[in-house]
């Protein structure tokens, strides 16, 4: 394949590929990843018989197409906790991008497809605060005038959980047995925080990663300026807002910034890469998937 310069996703042959995926950014000096060698303790362990938890993963379109390593990491963490993970393969997108653009009929079509795919699942887990908000909060708006679909949407909304919320509040542990190393700072993704009010769960999870210290940046809840369509419609404003975020990330001194949303991460990472900033932007699933042995 003509992808020589690409990071690990293709460079490593299967079946070890997913390990490489998780470890894709190698050799960042501020965030090295040597094995801590410590055995994992606490939390529900892998290898349980007849899993108590069953969850269908909604990967989100961004993870599916751009960041599959995040999906791989999420699966790894959930399986480690004994969750029986499934992936309904016909899934595509929650419809948020069209909805946010005002294109509601387009969004409704795609959202209905989402409902078709996930309706019969026991539990839906999403590694994104904004997609979870779309499903849990904004489907109500989208199907306001369509009572039948609204009812379906509400039912699916109720059984949908954002990944960190699911782990802490459904599986019931804030220690997933992860181990890594270094100073990590956490960015509150807007919808996760202000639509779903999830603030502590990700912090607890990060705090329990062996070898990792959570170092809060100033105004962790300040928007990164992404806003989906906003970032391409008003790139200058978006970048100006992002500059503030990058500044606070850098000032925190952390080697990695963690968030629960690939939208924010795409934005933050995109600028950090362009500027050669030596900080990793990683999804929380990636951090939680690390167990001190990979890399």
């Amino acid at each position, binding site marked *: 394949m003509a992808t020589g310069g690409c990071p690990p996703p293709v460079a490593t042959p299967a079946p070890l590929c997913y390990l490489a995926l998780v470890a894709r950014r190698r050799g960042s000096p501020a965030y090295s990843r040597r094995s801590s060698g410590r055995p994992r303790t606490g939390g529900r362990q892998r290898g349980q018989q007849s899993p108590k938890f069953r969850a269908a993963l909604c990967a989100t379109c961004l993870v599916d197409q751009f960041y599959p390593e995040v999906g791989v990491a999420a699966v*790894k963490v959930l399986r480690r906790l004994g969750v029986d993970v499934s992936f309904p393969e016909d899934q595509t997108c929650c419809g948020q991008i069209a909805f946010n653009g005002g294109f509601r009929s387009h969004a409704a079509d795609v959202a209905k497809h989402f409902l078709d795919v996930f309706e019969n699942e026991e539990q839906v887990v999403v590694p994104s605060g904004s997609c979870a908000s779309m499903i849990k909060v904004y489907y109500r708006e989208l199907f306001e005038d369509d009572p039948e679909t609204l009812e379906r949407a509400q039912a699916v909304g109720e059984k949908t959980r954002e990944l960190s919320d699911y782990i802490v509040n459904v599986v019931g542990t804030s220690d997933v047995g992860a181990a890594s190393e270094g100073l990590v700072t956490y960015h509150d993704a*807007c919808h996760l925080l202000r639509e779903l009010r999830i603030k502590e769960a990700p912090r607890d999870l990060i705090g329990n990663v062996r070898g990792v210290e959570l170092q809060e940046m100033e105004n962790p809840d300040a928007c990164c300026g992404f806003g989906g369509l906003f970032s391409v419609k*008003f790139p200058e404003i978006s970048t100006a807002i992002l500059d503030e975020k990058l500044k606070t990330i850098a000032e925190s001194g952390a080697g990695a910034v963690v968030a629960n949303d690939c939208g924010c991460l795409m934005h933050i990472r995109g600028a950090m890469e362009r500027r050669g900033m030596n900080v990793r932007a990683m999804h929380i699933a990636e951090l939680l998937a690390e167990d001190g042995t990979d890399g």
Partner: protein
Amino acid sequence: MAEVKSAEFKKASGKALRDEKLQHSLEHVMEHFVGARANVIEDDFGDESWEAMRTRAAGIKQSTLEHLDYYLDMVDKSVRRNGGHVYFADDAAQANAIVLDIAKRNGVKTVIKSKSMVSEEMGINHVLEGEGIEPVETDLGEYIIQLAGETPFHIIAPAMHKTRQEVSTLFQEWLKTAPTQDIKRLCVYARDALREKFAVADMGISGANFVVAETGTVCLVTNEGNGRMTTSAPRIHVVLAGMEKIVPAIEDLALFLRLLPRSATGQRITSYNTFASGPRAPSDEDGPEEFHLILVDNGRLNLLRDEVMREALRCIRCGACLNHCPVYRKIGGHAYGWVYSGPIGAIVTPPMTNMKVARDLPYASTLCGTCKDVCPVKIDIPRLLLHLRYKVAEGAIGERSTTWMERLFVGQWHGAMRSRRALEGKANLGRLLTRPFARGGKVRKLPFTPMVSGWTASRDFPAPAPRSFARLWREELAHDNGTELR
């Protein structure tokens, strides 16, 4: 009438972003407001009771709006009972005509004004000047803006973008004062100039923070005392109020007067709370001989009629949503192109003025939701922005209001996202097309794609992953029994 320049949003915001001095002022002032608000709320109430107060305030405002006809009628009766006059103006032109009529009838030469956003909508100063009547703004910020020939930069801090040097230069030019960097000195200069006007003005025009239906009382919240001068010194007092300013009873002010200053400036109480209930009574020693209340629609009915947008009329113009908005904090108020700026400006400007001209404004937000959290009357601003976007993209103003690129993108996206098969097909095509431009998994530049180039001007864009997650799942993850994967 104030001109609507919202079509220039993009250009104007770019200009603001490049203005270093402006960026400095914005950072400074916004930081101050945000900090002061947070501190005073924490000290006085804590989150829970503050939340309860917001809920109550939202309820009072909303129910007043739901029965606005009833309360408008009540205001009318109360004010007339107090000896005042009430007018209903459909638009800015009508409101201007009413003011002019009152002024001319009384041979008015000089008008002093306290802060009124409605008067900005009306552009009353120009109208008065055109008739040879001198309008003088008496709120210090508004006064500076008037001398500079500008419009307010912020709802409650209209001249926050002006430095002391700039103010000094303005005063030198207009008031012939000596140059100074001393803010106290500058205030004295302004006060001296304004005192003269207070003494000779025959008409005072004020806004209204609240109009109490039951008593016909107009409540003004100010810090400089100019509101009290405006409402009491001249012979005639004219009040300009948006018709949504009504609260039912005087008791309601106990709540709103706690919410407003804390949300706005982080003050527990402002220096002056002024209550004006009509002209002077025979037993009064002073006060105006005439009292006129003009209730202005000027596009508010468009909000009231729309069940979703209606809650925007709960706004008490505290400015908290501006202070906390990541977009406003970067571009300031002028870019929004009309009287109201920031999140509240983005939701009220299109329906109140012209959807087509102001169509960029609903999109000028990251939907981060901070505005909704700080709003003292709990206006769900993100939801209203989304509602307006819907109108722009599909509804009221026709398909042409979004760009062809956006429509093309959404069309393609729609085709792709309706099934996994379609998605994989389009995604593979995407991989093929972007491959020549990808370096190290990143795209720095894509030709012929105006939407992407906005992104790539400052940020790398990820190249599509060689294998989608779905494919990875199919080919590897699904076969793993799950428990041993690590």
